[in-house]
């Protein structure tokens, strides 16, 4: 009787797909997935969301690099337990670039100034482990959105730990916002779709929207705010499901690209 193979966990599958040795897309380096989180308004706590997502990716067994453009407080440093002088330093100096590590799995950096990220030094990568890059930022007003996204794509390349002439464009984008900001979220979805048509798109908000198009809606848990004050990344099954789902989507899209190229 043939030996029955045990089923593989999502982590194994994600690892295998993300560790694909063939370069499948010019913008997707080996074993690295890039997720952009655009926050439409301050009704949703960007740092809380980004820290929760980064920690969830880490629980999926990936290394995580998180870059946050912090237009307002709190910064991710608050949720990763930084001293107040560190996590609040962008309030004193917009150009301050602060970096740190959490639990040995998440490296993060934040600044209020995009150009400051050019000074970030990536660490020696452990290429045996898949790498997820999370870029979190407040979505700018419509007129300045295109140049901002272009500049962000360039500077976020510092997290790729290898030569990144085209910066770090997203494999997946998440647009998030509060229930009262439907118009802003709509602008944000439209802008992200136009800027990155090849990326998988999601929007996380408790509003319905005509502009959503191919963006998949993720209903935000109503009680997410309850953990806003805790100085640690939120632990919620919603983040774990989101991280697992994103890895799966990115992996399947890459696999599809490889299969398509092989035909």
């Amino acid at each position, binding site marked *: 009787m043939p030996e029955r193979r045990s089923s593989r966990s999502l982590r194994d599958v994600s690892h295998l797909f993300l560790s694909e040795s063939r370069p499948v897309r010019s913008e997707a380096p080996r074993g690295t997935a890039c997720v952009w989180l655009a926050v439409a308004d301050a009704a949703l706590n960007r740092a809380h969301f980004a820290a929760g997502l980064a920690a969830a990716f880490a629980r999926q067994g990936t290394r995580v690099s998180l870059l946050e453009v912090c*237009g307002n407080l709190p910064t991710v440093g608050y949720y990763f337990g930084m001293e107040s002088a560190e996590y*609040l330093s962008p309030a*004193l100096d917009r150009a301050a670039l602060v970096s740190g590590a959490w639990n040995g799995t998440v490296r993060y950096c934040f600044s209020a100034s995009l150009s400051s990220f050019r000074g970030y030094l990536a660490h020696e990568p452990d290429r045996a482990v898949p790498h997820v890059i999370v870029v979190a930022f407040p979505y700018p007003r419509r007129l300045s959105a295109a140049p901002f996204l272009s500049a962000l794509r360039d500077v976020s390349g510092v997290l790729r730990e290898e030569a990144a002439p085209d910066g770090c464009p997203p494999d997946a984008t998440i647009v998030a916002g509060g229930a009262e900001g439907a118009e802003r979220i709509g602008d944000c979805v439209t802008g992200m779709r136009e800027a990155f048509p090849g990326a998988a798109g999601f929007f996380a908000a408790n509003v319905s929207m005509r502009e959503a198009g191919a963006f998949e809606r993720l209903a935000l848990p109503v009680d997410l705010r309850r953990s806003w*004050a805790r100085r640690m990344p939120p632990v919620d099954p919603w983040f774990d499901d989101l991280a697992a789902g994103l890895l799966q989507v990115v992996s399947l899209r890459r696999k599809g690209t490889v299969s398509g190229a092989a035909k």
Partner: protein
Amino acid sequence: MFAVGKRIGPRPTRRLFVRFCRAVSRLSDRFEMEVAPFEVTFREPGAGFCVVVSPLRDLFLVSIGESRSFDVRVSSDESFISALDLTVERYLASASKDASAA
């Protein structure tokens, strides 16, 4: 806001006052700012969160909560950080409490 801050003599402290008010105003889109001759108040309607920033001669005073139960005197980067940390923490706690009550 700038006009109220002019009551503070030392320019570095005046700068801290403006930075503090700016950082607090960006905590939430729902904040209402009231500028009075001797103080600036930030309040989130219905949330029970309130910060009053009062410029004095050489410093400014940050009072947190409707009952002004916490006062921090700010005249340096260190006291600025203490006041802002407390404000951020109290604001987030207030938002969390609202979510729990809802």
